[in-house]
């Protein structure tokens, strides 16, 4: 299966993505990650107001088979979470870069973005074609 990696989205090596718009970073997991997990049945999100640290576990995504940690790709305060995922965790599978987003943070260290992978680099990371 071909992985869809949208333009302008940055990835962590641990398969989370970040999209920056007007100083707000939206975070989710990659199409590759959802494909590896399959059948997402539950997503545990950080509470709004919580401060997450880049590289630290801050959410859990559960498939039928396993629970997997999701690591914050950037540091900052959680300003919003995707409440839809409580009722429709399958959005993570069907639309990982859109409706299946996890949460938003107000960046506390914007320079961390420089350490993330651009689409072509992430494609290489997961062994796909650019």
């Amino acid at each position, binding site marked *: 299966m071909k992985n869809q990696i949208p333009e302008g989205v940055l990835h962590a090596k641990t398969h989370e993505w970040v999209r920056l718009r007007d100083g707000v970073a939206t975070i989710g997991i990659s199409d590759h990650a959802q494909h590896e997990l*399959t*059948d997402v*049945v539950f997503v545990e999100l950080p509470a709004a107001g919580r401060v997450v640290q880049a590289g630290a576990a801050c959410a*859990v995504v559960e498939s*039928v088979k396993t629970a997997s940690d999701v690591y914050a790709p950037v540091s900052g305060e959680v300003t919003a979470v995707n409440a839809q995922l409580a009722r429709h965790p399958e959005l993570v599978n069907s639309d990982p870069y859109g409706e299946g987003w996890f949460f938003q943070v107000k960046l506390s260290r914007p320079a961390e973005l420089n350490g993330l992978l651009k689409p072509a680099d992430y494609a290489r990371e997961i062994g796909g074609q650019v």
Partner: protein
Amino acid sequence: MLNRTPLFAAHQKLGARLIDFGGWEMPVQYSGIVDEHRAVRTAAGLFDISHMGEIVVRGSAAPEFLNWVLTNDIRKLQNRQGQYTLMCNERGGAIDDLYVYQVEAEEYLLIVNASRISADAAWLNQQLAAFPRRQAVDLKNLSADFGALALQGPKAAQFIDLCFPSGSEPALAGTLRKNDMARREYQGRFIFISRTGYTGEDGFEIVAPAEITPTIWNKVMEIGAPFGLKPAGLGARDTLRTEVCYPLYGHELDENTTPIEACLGVFVALGKGEFMGRPVLAEQKARGTAKKLVAFKSAEKSPPPRPHYPIWSAGPARRQIGQVTSGTQSPSLGIGIGMGYVPPEMAASNSAIAIEIRGKHAAATIVPKPLYRKG
């Protein structure tokens, strides 16, 4: 290096995701656990169970020996009939749970768990060495010589006889009764077809010489495709068996857990005479046990329960009362389900409990087994 079944190449070709399962490189899923689970509940699924062990016990003292080492009564079997049974140690703890078939008089086929093949063979040989009529028993571990498939689902009976030539006793495999087996000749070799399974659906298990197992897999896949047959992996096998509360060795059963504690007393024939573990099992049946296997369902939206999560009592004086042995999100019910051991006084159906999930308590309810019933 992991063990591989005769179907390893077939799994790779189908794009299966392979995992280490008790030292075996096995397919956990092909199209996805939920998709495969639904195929088995509504149409049919084909599982590679070649990793399971085959032990053949022959001889005039074979029934007597097996009735000594196994808990169920082998004398209930006629030729080409099978039964679920357990093998216990002196403490009544389960060495394994297995199926035993009486292929013919004085010839028995034991189908044992992959993870227990060596433990079982060692235990059986040790017991045989101490068995008075050991000269009249021939015990062979033929696990490496056989492959096996499980064809499971409500449509399986519609095409099983299109896959194999008809034979005798019975002429059609589709007319086999539950737990009965038929012997068939296929490509000049004998294969066994039994009406058994581990999914809660109707279905068949096919045991065949390893060399012809891939041919049989391909044949069944081809004939079954128009009926909605899909290859199914160990992931779906686990969710299917958990929904119907079948124990999995290493989860619900181990050498320190007895069949009585696991609520499998119906497979322990206390009336058949002396057998290994009987004193403990009879005592437990009469006086009760310290723990009892229960099934539970999530009572609120929560992450799925998983093995080893603590089980807590509900109410004001909360305390930990047990541990989850199997747990998952039920694809059929759409909620978290599981099994676990709790003290018998806390095991009543409809009791409120809590499952500790990452430090938080999620409400659950003890419910009668099975958690899911077909139809």
